């Protein structure tokens, strides 16, 4: 890993609300429909060469953060600083010069690459659109180098192939090459392996790790897979209903969580060992909607540690150990309980 600590991306108090269309009944009653708190006061920074992970369940706001940073959907408030430059509020035109520096790799390579374009056309498109090359030869050279970096070899043989001639893993690597060819400093990877078979997931992860190593590119990875985060991510933030509830070095967060929600996630992950203890459900009920998130701590209605204060006062995200931050009133009790091998004040499955 790079020892360079230059901050590539800094997000401060980022909030994104979506308005909900008022229903007919609500407009008659002059009621407001409320707003979806997709991302609520989120701050973090990504250093050069760092892989930063955002993990959480569906609806936690992970993907919205990417869309907001890329200005595909401008933030409601907060600042987004890319290499010292505030980019929130920039117009489409002003944003253009940052677009090549921040690239995205989507979840499903069967949908994200155009089946009617050859590998060369797919990867080179960004070069031509952004006028980064002056000749076809130059484009071929850059595309070949990018394909080589994602281990599509020999690259020359693949230039004229079409996506249907590629396996799922190769398609995803072409999608990574398309991002890489523009020489970005930050790549957003939105669940880059969740649509792929287990046997080829590792190949994609290893490609992402190698481009970080070789080119010092930072990666913001969105995932729901904690086991994978532990193996691939440096710094991990756990999100719940639009907020970061815990963050720290990925391996520490996963193996010794402070937040009851993080712990509930880890307890629910099955392991490939029939002798291992069975998964446990340690959060009551289901994830709430972000239209009217619970008061106080958003996790309190599901939490076995919750007390009266949790319903009224929102816990701040605070540093509780070097490099470890958690937003929980009872982080100490929770952490000690887990360290003793207990699941919580209520023993066993909370669903029974």
């Amino acid at each position: 890993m790079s020892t360079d600590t230059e901050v590539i991306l800094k997000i401060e108090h980022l909030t994104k609300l979506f308005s909900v269309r008022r229903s007919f009944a609500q407009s008659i009653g002059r009621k407001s429909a409320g707003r979806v708190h997709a991302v609520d006061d989120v701050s973090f920074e990504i250093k050069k060469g760092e892989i930063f992970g955002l993990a959480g369940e569906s609806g936690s706001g992970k993907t919205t953060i990417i869309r907001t940073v890329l200005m595909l959907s401008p933030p409601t408030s907060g600042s987004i600083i890319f290499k010292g430059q505030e980019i929130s509020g920039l117009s489409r035109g002003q944003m253009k010069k940052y677009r090549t520096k921040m690239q995205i790799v989507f979840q499903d390579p069967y949908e994200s690459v155009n089946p009617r374009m050859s590998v060369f056309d797919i990867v080179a498109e960004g070069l031509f659109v952004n006028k980064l090359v002056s000749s076809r030869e130059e484009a071929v050279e850059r595309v070949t180098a990018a394909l080589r970096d994602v281990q599509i070899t020999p690259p020359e043989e693949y230039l004229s192939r079409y996506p249907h001639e590629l396996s799922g893993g190769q398609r995803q690597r072409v999608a990574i090459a398309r991002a890489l060819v523009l020489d970005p400093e930050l790549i957003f990877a939105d669940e880059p392996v969740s649509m792929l078979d287990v046997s080829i997931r590792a190949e994609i992860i290893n490609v992402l790790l190698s481009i970080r190593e070789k080119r010092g590119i930072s990666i913001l990875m969105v995932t729901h897979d904690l086991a994978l985060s532990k193996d691939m991510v440096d710094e991990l933030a756990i999100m719940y209903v639009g907020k970061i509830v815990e963050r720290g070095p990925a391996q520490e967060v996963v193996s010794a969580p402070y937040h009851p929600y993080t712990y509930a996630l880890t307890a629910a992950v099955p392991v490939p060992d029939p002798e291992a203890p069975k998964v446990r459900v340690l959060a009551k009920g289901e994830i709430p909607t972000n239209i009217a998130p619970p008061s106080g701590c958003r996790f309190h209605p599901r939490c076995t540690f919750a007390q009266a204060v949790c319903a009224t006062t929102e816990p701040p995200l605070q540093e509780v150990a070097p490099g470890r931050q958690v937003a929980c009133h009872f982080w100490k009790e929770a952490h000690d309980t887990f360290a003793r091998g207990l699941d919580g004040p209520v023993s066993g499955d909370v669903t029974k």
Partner: protein
Amino acid sequence: MYYTTAAGEVKAVDGLNFDVEQGEVLGIVGESGCGKSSLATTLLKLLPNNGIIKEGRIIMDGEDLVPMGDADVRRKVRWTKIALVPQGAMNSLNPVFRVGDQIAEAITAHTNVSRSDARARTEELLKLVGVDPSRGRHYPHEFSGGMKQRAMIAMSLALSPKVLIADEPTTALDVIVQAGIIRLLLGLRNDFGTAIILISHDLALVAQMSDKTAIMYAGKFVEYGTSKEVYGSALHPYTIGLLGAFADIRKPKEPLVAVPGSPPDLIQPPPGCRFSPRCPYAEEVCRTKEPPFLEAAKDHYVACHFWREIKAKRGGRA
């Protein structure tokens, strides 16, 4: 079971042998296109028109389903003896009918019970799968993904089948919701002795639930045995490769090793061992001769020419 297509015969399910006892969970692990979902539809004889069972027997309670006519299968087997929770089950609910009515319909369509009895049974079933019975009056869009999946499981249990086939029952569900479904299915097994055939690409999910595990590759089983044997002393290079590529949350940070290449075309599978083009142990014999499916240890079968060498090499672990 083969599919006839314009490009030739697809050997989707090719020469499998297994049995499931009452109260037992058999897990079938395989990647996309290995034939695991085709196996599920074959067992229920729900094949599309181009799917043909070439040979073999499917014996349920002493009766072979293969020669049985469609009407008989429908009347005597499906739902009552073997029920399926299909892949993407939560999207199988009809959006314009109430969830409870859909479950009740499954009951009245297959039995002679009255509507009110069917309704009572529906409430009982919803309760069983952990859904508030009053929610039966709601429509599918008012249900979360996990609740829809629970409702589909309730429906499959309507006629108390002896065998439940669950095809990727937790795909697309969040991890805590998935854990709830795992516990629900295991609870059904414990409480009612329902046998479960669990089909999944997820090694860890299968490890959590299954007494026996089969690893499927390109239409064939490559390894089969008690889960303890298959996971603890894996002998087939494909199984070993899958385990090495799988991120295990308990372990410290570790590099993941991919299985090179991708699964073969089932119209023209590679000669010899179908895994040989991707196998690190492959030698000439693997490319010419199909390995026999042998009992390598008690309750542990493997189809590999070099299982003995692999076992010796892996030493204590095998």
